């Protein structure tokens, strides 16, 4: 196992910068998820660690060694591909043992090792089948087995679970989590599924438009999203973002928006001087921190019911505000609410996030107590 380091890495395809000036480091034994929407540069970053793409500028280090221009085979890495990349003409044993074959190992050693790994991944009984004769989940495990069959410094995963159906994906996710804890492997895992990243990663790098927006532990990213982009990307459903105006009133700065009461949210002096009156800010509240409240109470958002989706243990209640924007709450109740009925959602002042006009987080005093 080894560390991975990116220093000032840029990758351009013609005019388009897929990754621009990205620097970060992954510690030995860390499981890092690169999380972001399509085209954010996460897969390109992974491919540069693998050596399948070469940076336009900057360096990639594995275990402290500059491998920027190394061929993939000289990097001692393993990779699991999104489409699994299993060879259709080889049975599972040969697929799993292929990395050993190219290393010139004997047939008996290859098959012995393939069986060991396959048994761990519970596909030992399928070794003489072809990839087309097994299920998607088993194919996923086979490609994982091929990555684990030889010792590697870093394990790379390119959206390995995205081709599985929802139930299998949960199962495979738990299995990967267990495996990582068991082996203590250094892993880089690309995904666009925030739940996958939250569940697996020791640290998450949230990427957008070729840059890393935030690189922190899952809990930090959930509790203190650095920007509105992160706030909107992590969490299911995502954080509600409400535009509010900063105005001078009663001798201190206050935040106002139609249908929103913010009584307990006395602006600290630090924020007030940083922002000044007349600016538009963004208020962020996670759906799980909203509940049904009495109209007129402190710290509420009100509107008309737009949708009420029963999810089993909870309901997703979405209201439409006067300006047409929507706010969703996760509410653990089965009360019936009629469409177009006026609904007021309340929240605790401690669960409020503030972002400035550019979308960057405004650190509130006492935020650490969140």
């Amino acid at each position, binding site marked *: 196992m080894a560390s991975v380091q990116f220093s000032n890495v840029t990758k351009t395809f013609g005019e388009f910068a897929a990754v621009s000036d990205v620097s970060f480091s992954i510690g030995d034994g860390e499981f890092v998820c690169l999380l972001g929407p399509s085209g954010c540069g996460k897969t390109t970053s992974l491919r540069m660690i693998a050596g399948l793409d070469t940076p336009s500028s900057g360096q990639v280090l594995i275990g402290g060694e500059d491998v920027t221009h190394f061929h*993939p085979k000289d990097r001692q890495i393993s*990779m699991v591909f999104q*489409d699994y*990349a299993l*060879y*259709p003409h080889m049975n599972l044993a040969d697929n799993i043992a*292929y*990395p050993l074959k*190219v290393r010139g190992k004997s047939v008996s050693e290859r098959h012995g090792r393939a069986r060991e790994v396959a048994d761990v991944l519970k596909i030992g009984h399928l070794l003489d089948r072809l990839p087309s004769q097994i299920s998607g989940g088993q194919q996923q495990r086979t490609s994982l087995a091929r990555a684990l069959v030889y010792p590697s410094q870093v394990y790379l995963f390119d959206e390995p679970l995205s081709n599985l159906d929802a139930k299998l994906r949960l199962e495979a996710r738990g299995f990967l989590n267990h495996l990582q804890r068991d082996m203590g492997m250094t892993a880089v895992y690309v995904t666009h599924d925030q739940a996958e990243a939250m569940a697996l990663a020791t640290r998450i790098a949230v990427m957008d438009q070729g840059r890393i927006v935030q690189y922190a532990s899952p809990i930090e990213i959930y509790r203190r999203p650095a920007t509105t982009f992160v706030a909107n990307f992590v969490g299911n459903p995502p954080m509600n973002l409400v535009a509010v105006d900063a105005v001078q009133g009663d001798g201190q700065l206050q935040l106002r928006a139609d249908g929103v009461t913010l009584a307990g949210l006395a602006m600290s002096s630090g924020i007030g001087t940083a922002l000044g009156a007349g600016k538009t800010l963004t208020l962020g509240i996670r759906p799980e921190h909203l509940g049904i409240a009495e109209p007129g109470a402190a710290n509420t958002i009100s509107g008309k019911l737009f949708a009420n989706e029963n999810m089993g243990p909870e309901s997703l209640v979405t209201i439409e505000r006067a300006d047409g924007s929507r706010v969703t709450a996760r509410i653990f109740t089965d009360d019936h609410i009629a469409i177009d009925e006026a609904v007021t959602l309340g929240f605790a002042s401690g669960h409020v996030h503030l972002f400035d006009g550019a979308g960057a987080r405004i650190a509130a005093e006492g935020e650490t107590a969140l």
Partner: protein
Amino acid sequence: MSNQPTTSGQPKRKVKNFALLSNWAGAVFLTPAGLLVAVFVIVPFFWVIFVSFTNRTLLGSTALNPQFVGLANYLALFDPANFFQRGQFGFSLILTTQFVLASALVGQALLGLLLAWLVQTVPPWVKRITETFVIAAWILPEVVIGFAWFAFLDRDQGTLNALLGSVGLPPGDFLLQQPFWVIVVFNTWRGAAFSMMLFSSAFSSIPPSYFQAADVAGASSWQKFRDIGLPLIRGHIVTDLILITMWTFNTFTPFLLTNGGPSYRTELVSIYNYRVAFNDFQFGKGAAVGVIMMLINLAFALVYLSIGRKKTR
């Protein structure tokens, strides 16, 4: 080929057939083409079979009143006394077999495979230039190609001898000294494009992740070719080999370079057939050669079709 829909074995669906034309109008449009095919393909096909059992010639009494001679023409072709002599049917059949082996199976297919594999990894512009040149050799008209090669190989004014002379090598009269190898090289050069294009598109249809996974696993270029590329295009290779075997077996273009000579050393069956029928004017015997060639082609075609059918199933 493999993804062509087959109607056999599928349940008949009651879908309305949205034809552009009524059956009657369709028949009207088909008639001219049908007539041409009948006159120039179907009638000659049976006519050749008929003529091969007669002693029809261009001149003399048998020109007007050909007689039915049974299998005499065939027996003459397969006469053990002179079957393998130069200028005889057996000689040209063996020559053609050697020609197919050397120029089609080894030359075109191997060179095409090599080129197709190499252009997978080069920058796109190198790939485009290579493909352009190789295809140019393939699409130019036969007469142009024949004349260009004749000029290239000419003993006194030829480009090849000029090139050899400039590096201090002695000139040669290749068309006289090595006529067989000249037509082998010529046919390889001429036909490698087809194999290359077919293999190239076959390689391109393999998901790139297969090769990337092999890269990460540590495979060399040769290992990727042997373990992944080659097994995954096996079907295309069989198709290619059968097609180029048929084409090379029937090719007549070497005639433009050597006239089948010197002293019958490049007389392939197609050229032999032409000489017997249109130089010696022995229509009956020429027709018999034609029938035998058709049977050989039919055998290849049946093998090809049966493999194609296996793949679609």
